[in-house]
Each structure stands twice: as C-alpha cells, then as structure tokens.
C-alpha cells in the first residue's frame, strides 16, 4: 500500500511555502489597519478559510452531480472527501469570524444574514456526513447523499451576496465580481489576501486528495472483506 499521507507531496510543499510567505506578509510586511489595529489581520485567515468552505460545497455539489450522471464511484469518493475537508474549513470560518467579531462588534455572534447562511453551510456539511454515516452502505446511500450534495450548493451564492443584500454589521464584499468599488482592499492588503488564499487553496486540495485516497482504501477493504467472505462460503459449500 502506498503512503497516503505523504508529507513530501508537492501540493503540501507548495502550500507550506506559500503559507510561510503569507505569514511573513501578514505579520511583518503589511501595514497595520488604522481602525481595528492588529486584529484586522484575522482577515487574511478568515477570508481564505471561508473561500475553502465554499469551494468545498462546490466540489461536493459538482462531484455529486457527476455521480448522479455517471454512477462512477470516484465522484462519490471526491464528494465525501470534499465534504469532510469543507466541514473543517467551515468550522474554522465560523470560529475565526466569532473571534474577530468579539473585539470589533463587542459580541461573539449577531445572527445576521451573512453569519446565519454561513452557519447553514456548516449544518449542510454536518447533515451530509451524518447521513452517510447513518445510512447503510450501497448505491441508495450514494444516490441520496449526492442529491443532498447538489441541493447544498444553493446556500453558497446566498452567503456570497448576503452582506450586500442585507446590509448589517458584516462588511460588504471586498473581493470577487460583486465587490463594491468603495470597499475593495488596497493593493498591499489585496496582495497579502491573494497569497494567503492561494496557500489555503493548495492546502484544501492536498487535504481532499489525501482524504480521497483514504476513502479509496476504505472501499478496497470492503471489497477484500467481501471477496474473503465469498471464498469462505465457497470453501464451506
């Protein structure tokens, strides 16, 4: 069996290198924001992990859709791997957001649209993985899980546009096509955010790849057990 968790994987090395560069940029290079002070640097973690959690549900949705079309196990494995990693990123998005909210809003949680839709995304991941762990293995489980995965992606555009649609405490979009020109980041802050986002994106891909391989091994174990019990039955007969 090949080593699944390969610490010399080029993706991991690339991610670690970019992460090192991002850390230098975040803590040494980029100027301190005048309104919030040092705590504003949480942005360079919060936005990339939020991006990772949304990327995760896109992959879950896309691969679930492909599974429904092709009925190929590899799409199902990719959906599971992405959901699990997406859950980790989603949890980090919520936690980092809460820790950031405390000093700048004086509360841990406000329950406004942006935060609530992000929490729903977290619940979607939890529901998807709970469904898979409770439902007996087989084609029916994979089909129903794929349907949940496809439906789950509906939340993503709502999260993205929530701050612009319902203007509350969460700042409006600073990146992407719907970002307001007045609220976009300056070039220095934008550069740091880009490097940090790239680092977390490569980390996301590495983690999904690793989880995918583990899932493949789990399927191999099931196959081996099936073959083993079949040969035992043949021996008995």
């Amino acid at each position: 069996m090949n080593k699944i968790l390969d610490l010399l994987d080029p993706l991991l090395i690339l991610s670690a290198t970019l992460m090192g560069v991002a850390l230098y940029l975040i803590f040494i290079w980029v100027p301190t924001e005048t309104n919030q002070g040092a705590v504003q640097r949480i942005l360079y973690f919060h936005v990339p992990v939020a991006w990772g959690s949304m990327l995760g549900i896109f992959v879950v949705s896309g691969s679930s859709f492909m599974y429904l079309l092709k009925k190929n196990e590899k799409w199902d494995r990719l959906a599971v791997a992405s959901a699990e990693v997406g859950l980790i990123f989603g949890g980090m998005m919520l936690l980092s957001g809460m820790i950031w909210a405390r000093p700048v809003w004086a509360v841990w949680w406000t329950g406004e649209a942006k935060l609530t839709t992000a929490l729903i995304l977290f619940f979607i991941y939890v529901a998807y993985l709970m469904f898979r762990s409770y439902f007996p293995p087989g084609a029916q489980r994979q089909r129903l899980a794929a349907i949940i995965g496809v439906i789950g992606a509906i939340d993503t555009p709502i999260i993205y546009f929530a701050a612009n649609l319902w203007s509350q405490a969460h700042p409006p979009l600073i990146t992407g096509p719907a970002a307001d020109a007045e609220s976009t980041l300056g070039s220095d802050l934008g550069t740091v955010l880009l490097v940090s986002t790239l680092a977390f994106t490569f980390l996301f891909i590495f983690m999904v790849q690793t989880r995918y391989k583990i899932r493949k091994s789990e399927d191999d174990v099931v196959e081996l057990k099936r073959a083993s019990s079949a040969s035992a039955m043949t021996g008995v007969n």
Partner: protein
Amino acid sequence: MSNVTNTAIRVVALRIALAMILAFAVSISLTQISSAEHTPPVNGIVVGVETDDDGALTRFAVSDSTGTIHTFTIFKGTEYGLENQAGDRWVSIQEAEPSEAARRLRDHRERFAPITVTSENGTAFSVVEREEGKLETNLGYLFAVFAVTWALFFAYVLYLGRKQRVLQHEIARLKGASGK
C-alpha cells in the same frame, strides 16, 4: 431482514430530515430575531450628554466615523465599562450609580475618547471603552484565531494519519488471510 433494514433506513432518514428542518428553523429564527431587534454596535465619540434634575444620565449622543449622530436612551440595566485618563476602569450599571455615568461620559466627551455602544431600538445596553481598537490589546484575539486554526488542522491531519494506519493494518491482515 430486508424489512428490518428498510425500517431502520426510514427511521434514520426521518431523524436526519427532522434534524435538518430543526437546524433550518433555528437559523431562520435567529435571522428574524436579529433583523427585528439587533442593531450593530456603534463606535464613536460622545458628543452630547443629557441628565435629569438629580444629575442622573438619561440620554447621550455618539458621533461615529462617518459623522452620523446616534442618540441613546438609558435604562436601569445599562452596563458601563469606562476608563479615566489614567486607565482606571469603572464598571457599573445605571441603577447603581446613575450620576457617575453622566460624569464619566462628559469626561470622555472632553477627551474625545472613543466608546462602543450596544443597543436595541435606541436603548443602550452596554457602554464600554473602545479598548478593542487599541493595537496592543487585541493581539490575544489574533493569537486565538491562529491557535484554533492550526489546532483544527493538526487534529484533522492526526485523524487522517490514524485512519491510514488502521487501513494499512486491515488491508495487510485481509491480504494475509486470503493468501495473496
């Protein structure tokens, strides 16, 4: 056997559906409560203080960074956490020291010291020093984000590593048992 399995599947599916509906309902309720009652905290400087005949604070006004004036009324449970120029913190509620709050806010107005006010429908719930805006005091939050982020990553990597070892062992055992 098949009927038992099907019943179990239905029960599990029903539980998951109920859990999802509950989670969704809670989230929607939170949003509705939020949009109905919650007002984002206001950061700014004190520009007006109003007292009654006994000198007890009744209303005050804050100007935020855009120049918008926010007026807040007080109730007996309004909480205060304000510092004087020397940095000594005064923590109290309106009911306990009604005139001290007015004095402290006037002091803040004279010093242009920023405060943070949380409120609902124009009634101030808490009036605190905007200490979080100071560069030296919010590093703890930054550290907390780092610690949580990396602890989660490492926990997940450890989980993957453990899973990998179990699988390797299982595959070796099964291959050994089948004589491959």
